């Protein structure tokens, strides 16, 4: 059994692309070997990467493909032999198959008798297969962004390829890609090892050979070393800890071949700048880790991850350099802070006319006006909030985008909103307004925090729903993997705030939120419908991913009357907190026999309705009591009315189990109804009345959930 090593040496690959490429290369090599029958049952694939290389080592490679016997089928026997003699067709087939004519045999299949031949195919050498196939696999690697570098532009790749190592045990596999011929020579750390090649004698020697050339090729080993060194450097300060940041650890792991950690410090006076700004400068701009004390207070220190190893003199120089850069950055930040205070945020709103929101959607000033209109509408749906708090609401919305004109945000764009909030506080405006502006862009991801206050929730919702609606108006709609303005994230954010924010979740429904962003709804029903459908997709996804409910329950709730809210008059709409709460409880109950039974009955009722509709029958909205004759239908009508009251009352009190048992209690009247009442009778009046009763039954239940979605769930699930 052999081992195979492939290493592609490159100029520095962007850190963000390395992990995926490493994985893909390993998968491609493994698949290739499998496809070519070159992989032993017991095999092991390991992959490596640094900024300057992608590598894969496969143990358990067959030196040669196994020989195979192949059965070939030729022309029909009638064509192949005339009077017992082989025809030219038979001779040609034998030649093609590489056998003597006398070796041809007869094959009988469903279509008749044919001539055939058994051919021995000798397996190819692994080295030959790899040399022939690997270039295509390498060329197919996916890169977010790639480039040309050679004259004539024969290939695109992430960065120029500088060397390739391809070894099957000790033998070089003559792979060629991008004009580079593979050999057994790799290269070590640029500075610590220099330009001399590193001889790789065999795949098994790869990791060790590079380690002695000051390159740790194993990503996890590098990550581990970085974490250990961060800990060790932190321990030199009493009571200190470094601020955990997995993303940053990942980045520096992919930026280094031989990482070491350096502790630096900065002047205490900079600690008067807000933490957010200090940490952003260190983390995003310098890729430093921040340090804090036991009370999570920032310390005037940082940790830098170097891609080298130096003595004390070198460390002093590098520390000095990094401290100098950081000091300049902090000075900038302080300068921006001071300069920005000269024009308070309230005077910056007008300046937003010169900041583009989107080329087809105008400036941030216009965006602010739209947000204001939406916030006005939504706050009126938050029981008395508008009349009590309008001054603050208005201030928060109007100032929300003003920080985009500040030097601080121009320099540190990722701090938009946060800087606005800090400036509002600094400029003596209400704390509520500061918090709202600070949190307006939350949540940035599905595990990011949501806005914590009512005003922050209102601002975040108004901003996001307005963006979604305006973009939809211009047909900027997410498709497949393309969502350049992160509208899905914005939509998911709105859903999460509606469900989770304690100040709004009991009161706010999605319908007024959508209305708020498009108040000329009559004129644009189609837009409203598209935005609503888009938002319901987010709700369905949220219920599954965040609330852990199964697909059918998410659908049943999505299609419920409570969500679709045909009647959106005040007092009829429920807060989205209830919708999610009900979904969770329904999820727990879906397996129970009662729920399944009633779901099946309701599905049957819905089917009858549907069939009637297909026949063009239009029953009245409500059954007429005087036309109810059979005791079973009278009983059903009575119970449906009762159940409706129970559902409406308990749902709004969060007593979801009561809602579900009330629905389940319809099992017996429905059974009785189906047993003794014939719906599709000749008497049209009677028929339509019964259809109306069934329709009401379905609709009363569907207000809480579309139970027909739940019928298919087996009770053991």
């Amino acid at each position, binding site marked *: 059994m052999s081992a195979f090593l492939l290493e592609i040496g490159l*100029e*520095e690959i*962007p*850190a*963000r692309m390395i992990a995926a490429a490493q994985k893909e290369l390993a998968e491609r090599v493994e698949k290739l070997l499998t496809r070519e029958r070159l992989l032993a049952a017991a095999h092991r694939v390991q992959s490596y990467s640094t*900024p300057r290389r992608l590598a894969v080592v496969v143990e358990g490679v067959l030196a040669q493909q196994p020989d195979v016997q192949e059965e070939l089928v030729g022309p029909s026997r009638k064509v192949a032999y005339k009077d017992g003699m082989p025809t030219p067709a038979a001779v040609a087939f034998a030649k093609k198959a590489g056998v003597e004519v006398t070796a041809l045999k007869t094959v009988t299949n469903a279509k008749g008798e044919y001539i055939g031949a058994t051919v021995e195919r000798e397996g190819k050498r692994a080295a030959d297969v790899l040399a022939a196939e690997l270039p295509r696999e390498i060329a197919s690697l996916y890169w977010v*962004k*790639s*480039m*040309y*570098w*050679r*004259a*004539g*532009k024969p290939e695109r790749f992430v*960065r*120029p390829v*500088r060397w390739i190592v391809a070894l099957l045990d000790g033998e070089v596999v003559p792979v060629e890609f991008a004009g580079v011929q593979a050999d057994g020579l790799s290269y070590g750390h*640029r*500075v610590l090892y220099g*330009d001399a090649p590193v001889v790789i004698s065999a795949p098994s020697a790869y990791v060790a050979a590079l380690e002695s050339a000051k390159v740790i090729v194993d990503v996890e080993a590098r990550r581990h070393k970085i974490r250990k060194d961060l800990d060790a450097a932190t321990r030199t300060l009493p009571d200190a800890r470094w601020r955990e940041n997995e993303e940053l650890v990942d980045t520096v792991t992919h*930026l*280094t071949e031989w990482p070491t950690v350096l502790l630096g410090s900065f002047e205490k006076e900079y600690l008067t700048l807000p933490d957010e700004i200090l940490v952003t400068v260190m983390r995003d701009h*310098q890729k*430093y880790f921040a340090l804090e004390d036991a009370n999570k207070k920032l310390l005037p220190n940082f940790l*830098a991850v*170097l*891609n*080298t190893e*130096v003595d004390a*003199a*070198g460390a002093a*120089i*590098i520390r*000095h*350099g*990094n401290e*100098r*850069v*950081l*000091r*300049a950055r902090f*000075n*900038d930040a302080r*300068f921006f802070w001071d300069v920005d205070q000269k024009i308070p945020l309230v005077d910056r709103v007008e300046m937003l*006319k*010169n*900041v*583009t929101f989107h*080329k087809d959607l*105008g*400036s941030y000033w216009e965006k602010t006006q739209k947000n204001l209109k939406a916030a006005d509408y939504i706050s009126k749906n938050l029981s008395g909030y508008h009349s009590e708090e309008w001054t603050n609401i208005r201030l928060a919305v109007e100032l929300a985008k003003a920080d985009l004109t500040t030097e601080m945000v121009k320099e540190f764009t990722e701090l938009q909103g946060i800087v606005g909030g800090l400036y509002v506080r600094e400029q003596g405006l209400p704390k509520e307004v500061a918090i709202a502006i600070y949190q307006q862009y939350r949540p940035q991801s599905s595990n990011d925090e949501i806005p914590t206050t009512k005003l922050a929730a209102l601002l975040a919702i108004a901003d996001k729903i307005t963006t979604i609606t305006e973009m939809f108006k211009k047909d900027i709609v997410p498709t497949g993997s393309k969502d350049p303005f992160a509208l899905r994230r914005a939509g998911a954010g709105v859903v999460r705030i509606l469900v989770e924010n304690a100040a709004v979740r009991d009161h706010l429904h999605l319908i007024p939120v959508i209305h708020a962003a498009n108040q000329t709804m009559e004129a644009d029903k189609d837009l409203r419908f598209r935005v609503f459908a888009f938002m319901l997709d987010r709700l369905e996804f949220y219920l599954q991913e965040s609330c852990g409910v199964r697909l059918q329950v998410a659908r049943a709730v999505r299609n419920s009357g409570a969500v679709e809210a045909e009647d959106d008059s005040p007092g009829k709409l429920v807060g989205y907190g209830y919708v999610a709460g009900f979904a969770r409880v329904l999820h727990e109950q879906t397996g129970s026999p009662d729920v399944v039974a009633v779901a099946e009955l309701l599905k049957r009722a819905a089917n009858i309705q549907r069939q009637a509709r297909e026949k063009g029958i239009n029953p009245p909205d409500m059954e007429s009591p005087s036309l109810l004759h059979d005791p079973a239908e009278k009983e059903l009508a009575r119970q449906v009315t009762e159940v409706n009251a129970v559902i409406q009352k308990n749902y709004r009190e969060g007593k979801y189990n009561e809602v579900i048992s009330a629905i389940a209690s319809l099992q017996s009247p429905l059974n009785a109804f189906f047993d003794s009442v014939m719906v599709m009778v000749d008497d049209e009046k009677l028929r339509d009345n019964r259809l109306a009763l069934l329709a009401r039954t379905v609709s009363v239940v569907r207000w809480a959930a579309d139970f027909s979605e739940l019928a298919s769930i087996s009770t053991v699930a």
Partner: protein
Amino acid sequence: MGVFDARPDTKLKTATSSAPTKSALTFQELLFELQRFWAARGCILQQPYDVEVGAGTMSPETFLRVLGPKPYSVAYAQPSRRPADGRYGENPNRLFKHTQLQVILKPPPQNVQELYLESLAAIGVDLHQHDIKFEEDNWESPTLGAWGIGWQVMLDGLEITQFTYFQQCGGIDLDPITAEITYGLERIAAFLQDVDSIYDIIWMRDVKTGREVTYGEVRLAEEVQFSVYNFEQADVEKLWQHLDLYEAECKALLENAVASLKNGDTTARSRVPVLAAFDLCLKCSHLFNLLDARGAISVTERVGVIARIRALAVGVAKVYVAQREALAAA
């Protein structure tokens, strides 16, 4: 010698600074060394271009030379004007006009990164005592219809160089590809001399007397006065008029050029003033930057003006390539 005259109160740098400044190059020595280094590696040494530009990339020595098949290697310093970046000389790290050392290698040699690292050694950076990283940073200029793939080179956490493999310029796909290395001279000098303010960089040191002249002495007045002009006094209406005039002339030249290249003989073709048209395009670009610094370009106008300048740059690139091809075929 005018501004270089030593005055009694001239701030003299003492040698007691904590940092390794003893052997650090002065600003002008830094430029000498880099020029010497690249000249020794086959580069033509050019002088800075004498029209206002925002970056060395906009000099015809880059913008036009990267087009077409002809190999070309050149190095030049380029004072680069960015009106909006001016800070009245008050910010120690920001300048209205900074100096780039631009190196163009067409096509790039295989060992281009190693060459670059050697150039750092040539200016006194011992890589064994420093931390160097190539971090992804792609470059794009919508006004020039140009973009490339590359890195920012980080030395001890400081971005000292932009390294770009040009992919497209003037809307034209490039072949061969050019490597562009852009050193930020002020930053590098401040780093080497370990000063916290650009204005404290030692520009020159008299070999005989040891007298030193700082960057501030040479350039501070310029930073102050141009900040005043760029932010406060540039006449917006006239800037717009200048822009219209330069644009009109550039367009007219380009229209004539297209006709002459189609119909003229070799002499007529070689006389087509594409290079003058490019100067006019650069003028427009600088005027746009000035108007921008004055806050005179509204959101709706902005996209339009960028498109106007891009049209000129793309037009020049096309005509330049057509002229080269016409002359090569003759």
